[in-house]
């Protein structure tokens, strides 16, 4: 056995973790190598001395200090409980801007216009099948059945002719509402930063960065005027709002957050 091998396994040997054959080989080497024998003795002496170090008793006043800190923390808990409804109201107010299907409700206005115009065409005896499909598609969108709506929807150019400008405005409103709500909640959360531990701040920042990245990606990937492509984006926004709400209410556990 070489010195380097003995050096590598010295700790394991001293802790009795080696097999009998290996231990015997190390003992054999120690008998004939003075340098390794000296290292071995030093390490053995160190371990023995460490195990004999005396336990350290804390000062008597430590217990009172602990009780005092616990008392302070519990009083703070009590005040936090009082603050919670106020905080909840602030958060709710920020979220109230968004009704989960807000943009769809607004879209009813656009749909009504489309139907009215379609009826006008019908009265005039010049209704086109694609325009009829547009009205049906929007009705289904209101019901949340976007897949069927996509199938029934007319080509984009034809749709735009009929009701796209108003729908585009509705979508723009909804986008703005969601983004403003998220910005408001993030601002409120930022005010709490001083009370977070470093670990909490790191976890939260990572989650928020993920939400932001995925939100931008989803937004870039979708069609600007397509109704159904909004579903994924708004579902993501709602998830982020829900996450922010939980964070503001102090309801997040260690592994909570986005499901991405």
């Amino acid at each position, binding site marked *: 056995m070489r010195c380097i091998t003995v050096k*590598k396994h*010295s*700790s*394991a040997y001293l802790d009795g*973790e080696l097999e009998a054959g290996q231990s015997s080989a190390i003992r054999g080497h120690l008998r004939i190598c003075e340098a390794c024998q000296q*290292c071995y003795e*030093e*390490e053995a002496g*160190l*371990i023995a*001395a*460490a*195990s*004999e*170090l*005396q*336990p*350290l*008793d*804390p*000062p008597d006043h*430590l*217990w*009172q*200090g*602990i*009780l*005092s*800190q*616990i*008392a*302070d*923390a519990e*009083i703070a808990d009590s005040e936090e409980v009082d603050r919670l409804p106020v905080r909840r109201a602030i958060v709710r107010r920020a979220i109230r801007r968004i009704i989960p299907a807000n943009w769809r409700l607004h879209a009813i206005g656009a749909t009504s216009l489309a139907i009215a115009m379609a009826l006008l065409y019908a009265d005039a005896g010049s209704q086109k099948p694609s325009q009829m499909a547009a009205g049906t598609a929007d009705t289904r969108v209101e019901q949340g059945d976007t897949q069927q709506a996509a199938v029934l929807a007319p080509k984009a150019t034809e749709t735009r002719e009929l009701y796209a400008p108003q729908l585009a405005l509705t979508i723009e409103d909804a986008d703005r509402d969601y983004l403003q709500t998220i910005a408001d909640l993030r601002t409120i959360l930022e005010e709490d930063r001083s009370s977070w531990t*470093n670990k909490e701040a790191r976890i939260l920042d990572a989650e928020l960065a993920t939400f932001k990245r995925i939100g931008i990606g989803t937004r870039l990937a979708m069609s600007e005027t397509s109704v159904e492509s909004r579903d994924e984006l708004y579902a993501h926004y709602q998830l982020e709002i829900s996450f922010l709400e939980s964070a503001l209410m102090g309801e997040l556990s260690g592994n909570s957050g986005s499901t991405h």
Partner: protein
Amino acid sequence: MPYTKTNSLTVSEPRKHGKSSELEFNDIELVEACLRGESPAMELLYRRYKRRVFGLVTRIVGNSDAEEVAQEVFVRIYRGLSKFRGDSQLSTWIYRLAVNASLTHVSKRKRRPECDPWDDQQAAPDEPMRDSALSRRLEDALQMLPAGYRAVIVLHDIEGQSHEQCAAILGCRIGTSKSQLHKARAKMREFLNQSLRE
């Protein structure tokens, strides 16, 4: 009505379980009693773990900050007991809190002006060691180690934890615990030899 803060948790004494001796409490029962706010149980938990926590903290952060960190550890223990699910031993969970708090404290202190972490004025061992000079050299050498090495050597060689327990406490693999200990001991020998030559 003005509120007067009290340190004593005897303000409300929930139901007692009638344990005649503190030895009758196992860790799970102790945790449950603490969660009910029973102050004797809280004090028992403190007495049961105070030396282990204080010793570990002192040897990782040094004497000057040991009291502050140990206090913080115990507050975290009591405030976090509801999160203890019994998946590991209570001692492992407590050691883990103590090691994490100590290492965090050391990493924060790095940015502060240097101070002697091993101050003679505080926390002297209970009884003199057979060779008090060796004891002192050992404690000094320990303080010269990087904090991570210090943690593993304190847990394994001083507190007598197994590598399995060290790995659970430090949140690493058993092999990592072994290799860290090997390196830590080599460094300790180096520092001890240096101090002998000086």
